[in-house]
């Protein structure tokens, strides 16, 4: 399309020219467009406000001074009625000066002269003056959730028709300290209600939506009055319709600490919706251990009441494999939902007594320890236990019972030698045990062989009576003096020049015979 003879850079010139042309056209067309579209609704011309603070000095001299006011007020009790806090000068309306709204002669000291032409309520006599500044008043005040009749009132005033409501009905003290914008002085709802009733406007008083713009969109299920029970503040609420009874701290906390603003969404009645779990163990179902009456106290009570468990933890960390609700040793119903890592928060390990004999060859525990058996377990603790569960709690102590170092022939009454007061007493742990039990753990010894015992066991009428040579059960040493008194043997051997023979008999008499 670009003519062949035109250089390529002419394209840049064309583009620039277009931009310049567009700007030039806009400079012409924009004012033209505005001229062809004049404002349809003319802006009303308002009179300027008659700012008269400098002319209100005498008003302030009297009405800001209780003494001056008391001196001129008739009757005297009206002093409080006409006294004005000087602090009201700090508010937007107060700073306008008295005669701006009330007229009169504010720089005249004489009371009668000063009050001539006084207007008590500007919004009653010249309501349009209020509109000098407040023509565009909001119908709704979102931050206060209020619906107002501002539009109707302002339009009525603007058109010069009476609407029966004055600005001062709601904003009466606006020049004397009340500041409806900053909200420093809150107008309670009871003021509105009184006014409505006095004006016979009470037909709508039962409908909160007459004045209030509720922030919640729950009208399908709730009325305002289901929760809000006071007229002085929104925060006075009832829990009567709450689907779950609230107790403890929950009964006093703000609704939206738990519920989502503004429509109460996003809560499943789970503690973790609001509370952050401060510990790593357990799960988010806090109510398993805690109650709203006291998080710490309720958990402490559980810990204090928890029983110890009688087995070691190592190798058995998965508590619920045995103690699930349907497990071997089932836990109480109220423990349902608790996790393995919470068990030892309450329950301490208190392992059962260890097994003091080898388990090998003695694996049938109940043969000895079962109900009615020779070493019966403690019934109150072990009731219902079966063979398989013994080793869950009881571990082998690693003790190997001493073997009986003699034969049992003729020695069936163990306690005759091994009772606590006998010459070879059993250990204190055997206290109370009877002869029946000894051979359950201790293995009876066989008679030593000739290789083990080169000295003849039938030596001269001993007839295998070991204790004759090994008194006190000491089989590491021998003792010939039971039959061969040392004194006599020493005389006989001394006569032959053999001295120091004590405990040396077998050196010369290995077969118990004369050398």
């Amino acid at each position: 399309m670009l003519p062949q003879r035109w250089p390529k850079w002419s394209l840049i010139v064309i583009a620039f020219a277009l931009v310049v042309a567009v700007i030039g056209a806009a400079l012409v067309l924009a004012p033209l467009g505005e001229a062809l579209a004049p404002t349809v609704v003319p802006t009303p011309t308002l009179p300027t406000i008659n700012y008269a603070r400098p002319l209100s000095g005498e008003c302030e001299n009297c009405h800001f001074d209780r003494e001056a006011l008391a001196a001129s007020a008739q009757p005297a009790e009206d002093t409080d009625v006409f006294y004005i806090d000087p602090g009201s000068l700090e508010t937007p309306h107060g700073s306008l000066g008295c005669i701006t709204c009330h007229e009169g002669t504010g720089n005249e000291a004489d009371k009668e002269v000063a009050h001539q032409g006084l207007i008590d309520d500007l919004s009653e006599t010249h309501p349009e003056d209020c509109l000098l500044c407040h023509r565009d008043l909001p119908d709704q005040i979102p931050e206060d959730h209020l619906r107002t009749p501002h539009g109707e009132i302002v339009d009525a005033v603007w058109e010069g028709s009476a609407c029966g409501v004055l600005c001062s009905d709601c904003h009466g003290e606006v020049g004397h300290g009340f500041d409806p914008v900053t909200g420093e002085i809150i107008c309670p709802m009871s003021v509105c209600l009184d006014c409505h009733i006095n004006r016979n406007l009470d037909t709508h008083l039962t409908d909160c939506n007459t004045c209030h713009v509720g922030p919640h969109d729950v009208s399908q299920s709730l009325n305002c009055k289901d929760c809000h029970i006071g007229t002085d503040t929104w925060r006075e609420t009832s829990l009567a319709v709450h689907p779950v009874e609230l107790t403890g701290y929950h009964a006093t906390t703000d609704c939206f600490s738990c519920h989502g603003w503004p429509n109460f969404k996003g809560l499943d009645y789970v503690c973790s919706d609001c509370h952050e779990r401060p510990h790593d163990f357990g799960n988010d179902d806090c109510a398993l251990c805690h109650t709203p009456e006291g998080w710490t106290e309720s958990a402490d009570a559980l810990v204090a009441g928890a029983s110890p468990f009688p087995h070691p933890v190592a190798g058995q960390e998965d508590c619920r494999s045995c103690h699930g609700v349907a497990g071997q040793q089932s836990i109480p119903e109220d423990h349902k939902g608790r996790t393995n890592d919470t068990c030892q928060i309450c329950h301490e390990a208190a392992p059962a007594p260890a097994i003091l004999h080898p388990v090998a060859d003695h694996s049938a525990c109940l043969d000895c320890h079962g109900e009615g058996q020779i070493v019966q377990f403690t019934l109150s603790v072990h009731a219902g236990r079966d063979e398989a569960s013994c080793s869950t709690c009881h571990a082998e102590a690693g003790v190997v019972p001493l073997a009986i170092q003699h034969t049992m022939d003729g020695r069936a009454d163990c306690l005759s030698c091994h009772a606590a007061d006998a010459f070879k007493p059993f250990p204190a742990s055997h206290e109370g045990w009877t002869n029946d039990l000894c051979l359950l753990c201790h293995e009876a010894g066989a008679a030593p062989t000739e290789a083990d015992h080169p000295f003849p066991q039938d030596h001269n009428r001993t007839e295998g009576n070991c204790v004759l040579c090994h008194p006190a059960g000491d089989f590491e040493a021998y003792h010939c003096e039971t039959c061969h008194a040392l004194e006599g043997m020493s005389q006989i051997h001394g006569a032959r020049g053999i001295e120091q023979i004590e405990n040396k008999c077998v050196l010369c008499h290995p077969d118990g015979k004369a050398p």
Partner: protein
Amino acid sequence: MGQTAWGWLVVIYLFLGGLGAGAFLTAAAFELSGLRARCEFCPTTLTGSCISGPAVALGSALLILDLGAGKAEPWRMVYLFTHFSSPMTWGIWILCLFIPVALLYGLLELIDAEPFIKGLFWARVPKVLQNLKAYRRRIVIVGCFLAVGTAVYTGVLISAAGPSVPLWSQPILPFLPVPMMPLLFLVSALSTGLGLTFDLAATIARPEIHEEVRAMPLIHIVLIGLENILIGLLLITALSSGGAAADSAREIMYGPLRIIFWVGVVLIGLVFPFVVHAYAIGAGRHSLWSGIVAGVGIVVAGLFLRYLIVVAGIPAYL
């Protein structure tokens, strides 16, 4: 009554800043995507690169002309560079960096398109500058960031003044406190840049380019649609927020600015180009005149949009 501090000089700056940034980004898109390399002569790249630097420089000059105290006491302008908490300082730095980069890119592109220019002075250019051609792609990438900054800055500038003029500080949505103006100005910058360099310049120079870049009408429709949505949101948000912002929106839609808005922006700049590009998608190509008129309409609307936003800015009621 709208604000009186900013007038046509600022409007034209906002327009040229956006147009220049958008033109650069369009040229860069052709460059970086390889579209430029496919043809011997790419009018979009040539126009975009050569327009962007001068347009932004001219706009910045107008901005200086608009200065009050700074014009009388120019030494005070140094503060513009050192007041780092001010969005204006950010903008000054962006402009000062973007303009030379864009001019350099334009020069490189012009030399490529018109070799005789190279013969005129290239031999006298220092070696270091001659070597810059090897860094052309990197220059374009850096320029892209600065171009986006320039386009967004025009919106940031106006929204930074927003608290005193509520229309300018409207959020994207009433519940999303992100300023609307930077996004709207960025989209508008892309649209006007594309309109000038592709719809207009490329159609004039090589009408067959529409056959080669078939996705362009669709891209333009997306941009126009997005701009449409943002303008609609701006007006709705302003109306719903009440006060001066709502009055600004009313002035635009059915006040004294309504003809400029409905004709200059909506009809010429949004509806017409939208229809034309939609037709082009259906027909598979643009006609010579549909391309040119759509491009002109988009550029015109870009200027009027900024004019409306500036003059309809009513100061907040105290």
